[in-house]
């Protein structure tokens, strides 16, 4: 609890206020005939009120001890690995449809095996090839999931 809570409650407060405005624009309707904005409006109002409560509770009544700083949440951990994983996944979504399942998955797995906690090349390549091929056979050929097909799929299957 502490500054980290203040930061997160501020986020919820802003989000709540945005939803309040958007819901109001959608139309609240009447009590006998609630409109499309009725439920989200009241939910966002509760969300904002709760976040205000958490925010001011921490500001006015410190819970004792040093408030937890946001930096402490990432202290002593290798946060860069998480960032790399997210970037790899986002990159995957960009090339997935065009490159086809096999090539893009192969590249993703190779990247994950080699960068996050580096493996030997044989393990990385072997793991990536096996996992890509087996998952393609199981999901695309056996379970009929329509995975995007690129040059490798056309060559192999």
């Amino acid at each position, binding site marked *: 609890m502490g500054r*980290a*809570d203040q*930061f*997160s409650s501020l986020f*919820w407060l802003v*989000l709540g206020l945005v*939803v309040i405005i*958007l819901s109001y624009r*959608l*139309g609240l309707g*009447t*009590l*006998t*005939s*609630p*409109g*499309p904005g*009725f*439920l*989200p409006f009241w*939910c*966002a109002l*509760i*969300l904002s009120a*709760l*976040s205000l*409560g*958490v925010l001011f509770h921490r500001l006015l009544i410190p819970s004792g001890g040093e408030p937890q700083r946001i930096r402490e*949440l*990432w202290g002593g*951990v*290798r*946060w860069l*690995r*998480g960032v790399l*994983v*997210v970037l790899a*996944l*986002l990159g*995957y*979504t960009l090339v*997935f449809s065009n490159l086809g399942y096999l090539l893009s*998955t192969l590249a*993703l*797995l190779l990247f*994950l*095996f080699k960068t*996050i*906690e580096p*493996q030997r090349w044989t*393990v990385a390549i072997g*793991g990536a090839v096996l*996992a890509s091929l087996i*998952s393609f056979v199981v*999901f695309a050929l056996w*379970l*009929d*999931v*329509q*995975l995007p097909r690129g040059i490798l799929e056309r060559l192999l299957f």
Partner: protein
Amino acid sequence: MDLVQNLLYGFSIALTPANLMYCFIGVFIGTLIGVLPGIGPVGAMSLLLPTTLHVSPVGAIIMLAGIYYGAMYGGSTTSILLNIPGEAASVVTCIDGYQMARQGKAGPALGIAAFGSFIGGTASILGLMLVAPPLAEGALKFGPPEYFSLMILGMTLLIYLASGSIPKALMMAVFGVILGTIGIDPTSGVQRFTFNILELNDGVGLVPLVMGLFGISEVLLNVEQSLKREIFQAKIRGLLPDLEDWKKSAGPILRGSVLGFFLGILPGGGALISSFVSYALEKKVSRTPERFGQGAIEGVAAPETANNAATGGAFIPLLTLGIPANVVMAMLFGALLIHGMQPGPMLLQSHPDLFWGVVTSMYVGNGMLLLLNLPLIGLWVQVLKVPYRILFPLVLLFCLIGAYSISYSVMDVLIMIVFGVFGYLMKKFEYEGAPLVLAYVLGPLLEMSLRQSLTMSDGHFSIFFTRPISAVGIGVALLLVISPFLPWLGKKRPAMGE
């Protein structure tokens, strides 16, 4: 007599080769993900949900249910051998299970966990068969106000039993309801919060949401620290508990079965709470409570029985009222909807094959689990040795395929990644995912019953307080919400995880 006929009917469905295979796949995967720390039953169910689209609805639910109770079985293995719970409901098993393993009694600990799970699971299925049909009949008389207040009660209980702060859990639930309103409003046809993104017209998908919150976020949390697992090295022998072990465990197994079943029925309750409460109960009734924590076999038998007994109980609100009691049931709720079935009191009448087929498949599944867990324990120990650095790319790959295959949309994959990062931050800032998911699933139903109730009452909220069942539901929910401000009640709030 009806019961026997229904049972035979159920077995005629559950024992078809196809359904037997789905049951086996379900319990096998359930045990596997129960054994593997880092992916829970919710993640595994969302992973397999898209593949069930090619399967009959009965087969799909049999498989998904198998994952749930299979995970309860498998979770005990890591708790006993590694001191790491494979899933949340096995946390308490670590206490005495790991101590038993250190004392060279890993075999009997694993054995009693498997037998207790089997007995608890079977007892709860019996309970489910006896309680569900009359309850479903009674629930037919429920109107929108009753449904509204029961859903509010279910969500409130989950919030109340959340491990962290109540305001934060409440915020998550409210946010979940807001998320559930994204898409085209079924009453007015108006687009809500879609920002002209075509893929959001049908709302945020359950699978990308759950996979992001429970799958991707878990990987992100795990990769930032080195996961070094110490596996119990000694050879495991003598899985069958001896007479003395059985004598000590008989009472805990019996009490765990009853307690687990009834706590499982409670909305917001489930396997986790059952395991904690049954452990506490055994410690309380024991003549030698000081043995607990030092490797008491009762400390393994009771929670493992209770968490399996709770799985049967948790099906009751889903199958009779159409209200999921916990996040796993919310996943099953979503699966039923995807397969074109509306969970609720009519389910038993309109799809008796589904109800009795699934219930009897659980008998079969429990038998399979006993076979999977005892003779194949060596295999699961080998699985434990797969390092996380090899495992996490595969978990990510399954998440990607799962999210994509639900509607062949890259947007769903993006939504999953966004919720993965969101879930990671939520865990960092100590917000829980369970109230969010349950509220998200219940949100559309909640909105519909609120609108119908207000229309029925000409806009008067008094309708929720003048009808007895609704009044009790809302009353208890209100009491729970204000409980943090009542010191005498707030202090007694049990601290539970997800």
